[in-house]
């Protein structure tokens, strides 16, 4: 605070409380409506005080949208993306920052450019690649004449195929294939003083030893930040899972189930069940963000700037 100004302090609090309302009202209404019985939720305008039916509504939503297995799927996908991203990003950033090879910058740019185009704008062709992830390699073999060579020599036609539809791999891999984490790690690795590398070299440790014993412990904060960001964004994915899982029963995620919870046009308007469902679906990433706020805020800012 720079000057004492009781009036301006009052204005500040008033504005912040207004902001609090603005941000919290959707959460509060979701919670309140989720705790009501059917006649209570049908009242307009809705009462702002919670009622006592939260757990039975959650139970109904849980059964109706089959949330148990879907939660497990969401958890598998979100942790898969998070772990995959943390690992791959650390390895590739390590390679780009600490090794001297010619194509280093080319590799960096190849990865960095992927930040430009979000999955949503290249959704149609990405979907087709998921039907056969080995297509590029087949194409490579075909154009190089290797397929022809093998066919003439052995009589076997090489047909590479790896279908990712309805699989965890398909849900996870395309989300891992972006530059987010690589960039974040690179920024951090650049701040590591050269003396540290020299010292560990002098102590006789090779690059992998240096990576494992020096870099990884130092980048703990970085990892926490990246983990939070990736967990939230992959838990909240909607379009990609919607496309890649035709078998909803086994591979659907919770966020996809939200639509199934909305009351039908002419059905019973049981919004209380919908809202109870929405509440538990939005809870996990919210908890992660609330708990990890200190780390993830720093990571978010250094990632994007």
């Amino acid at each position, binding site marked *: 605070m720079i000057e004492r100004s009781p009036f301006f302090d009052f204005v*500040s609090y008033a504005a912040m409380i207004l902001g609090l309302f603005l941000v919290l009202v959707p959460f509060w209404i979701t919670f309140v409506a989720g705790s009501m019985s059917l006649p209570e939720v049908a009242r307009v305008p809705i009462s702002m005080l919670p009622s006592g039916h939260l757990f039975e509504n959650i139970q109904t939503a849980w059964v109706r949208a089959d949330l148990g297995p879907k939660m497990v799927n969401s958890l598998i996908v979100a942790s898969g993306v998070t772990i995959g991203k943390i690992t791959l990003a650390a390895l590739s950033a390590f390679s780009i920052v600490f090794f001297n090879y010619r194509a280093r910058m080319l590799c960096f740019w190849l990865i960095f450019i992927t930040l430009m185009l979000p999955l949503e704008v290249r959704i149609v*062709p990405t979907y087709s690649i998921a039907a056969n992830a080995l297509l590029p390699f087949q194409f490579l073999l075909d154009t190089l004449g290797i397929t022809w060579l093998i066919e003439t020599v052995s009589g076997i036609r090489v047909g590479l195929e790896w279908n990712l539809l309805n699989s965890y791999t398909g849900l996870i891999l395309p989300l891992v294939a972006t530059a987010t984490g690589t960039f974040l790690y690179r920024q951090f690795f*650049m701040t590591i003083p*050269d003396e540290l590398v020299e010292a560990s070299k002098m102590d006789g440790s090779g690059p*992998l030893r240096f990576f494992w014993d020096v870099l990884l412990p130092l980048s703990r904060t970085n990892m926490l930040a990246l983990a939070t960001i990736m967990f939230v964004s992959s838990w909240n994915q909607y*379009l990609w899972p919607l496309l890649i899982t035709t078998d909803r029963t086994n591979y659907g995620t919770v*966020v996809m189930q939200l639509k199934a919870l909305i009351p039908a046009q002419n059905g019973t308007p049981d919004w209380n069940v919908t809202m109870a469902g929405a509440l538990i679906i*939005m809870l996990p990433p919210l908890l992660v963000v609330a708990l990890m706020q200190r780390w993830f805020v720093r990571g978010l800012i250094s990632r994007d700037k």
Partner: protein
Amino acid sequence: MERRAYYKNGGLPWLLIAPQLILVLVFFYWPTTQALYWAFTLEQPWGGGNTWVGFANFLGIFRDGQYWAMVGRSAFYAIATTAISMVIALTLAAFVDRSLKGTKLFQSVFVWPYAIAAPAAGVAFRFIFSPDAGLVGAINQIWPGLWNPAINGAHALAMVIVCHAWLGIGYNFIFFLAALQMIPRSLSEAGAMDGARPFRRMMDLQLPLITPTVFFLIIMNLISSFTDSFGLIDVMTEGGPIGSTEVMVYNIYVDGFKGLDYSGAAAQSIVLMLLVIALTFVQFKWVEKRVHYN
């Protein structure tokens, strides 16, 4: 800054970067190239591969008046969500930046919308704005038929925009607060000594100093409004009523996966890609050069 201490280990760096490179090639470069290929070709109705059609697919969508209406709608959507979300976030950040007692609590709550899945917020807002339930529907009891996003296109679009703007508050708030806190305390103190009141300092001192962040956020918000709207619209309106909330990403989905018109969808994807690339380019080249206050 060039780094002096490098490792030189022939194959090892390639081994380390290979997994990431392969993923990026398979799931980014290949699909992007594929989109280009589809955009300039047309699949034969009886099989037999694609034939080259030049710009026909593009001309096809550009000649369609509905396409331009949709592009206009997407632009309006993007600008409106960006403006609303940023103004709210900046206001909140400015007050939080005064670090009065108890601000920490406000600060952590203002970040929350960042954590919420767009479709989940969509469900909540759909209920809040429902014409015959929730909160806003109450005005229909006083004035029947005043508010109905299920049949009125403008109402539906407004509803989706409000929800998208709300979702962006957390992200924008984080960046604005960080930028405001980077401003040296002494500057604001000097301003105060010269008799500038808080509001005056905000307009003449803090705002000019955080312009890089403002521009950065404008671009990020525009890109996100153009690309992230699918989940929200699918849950809230499904593009309706009568296409009044159909925006670019949603249309690509409808044409590509419902209409199975891959070439048309690919051409639309290319247009959207170019738009996003142009925005990113502005961010990298123009904004970074234009705005510098170090």
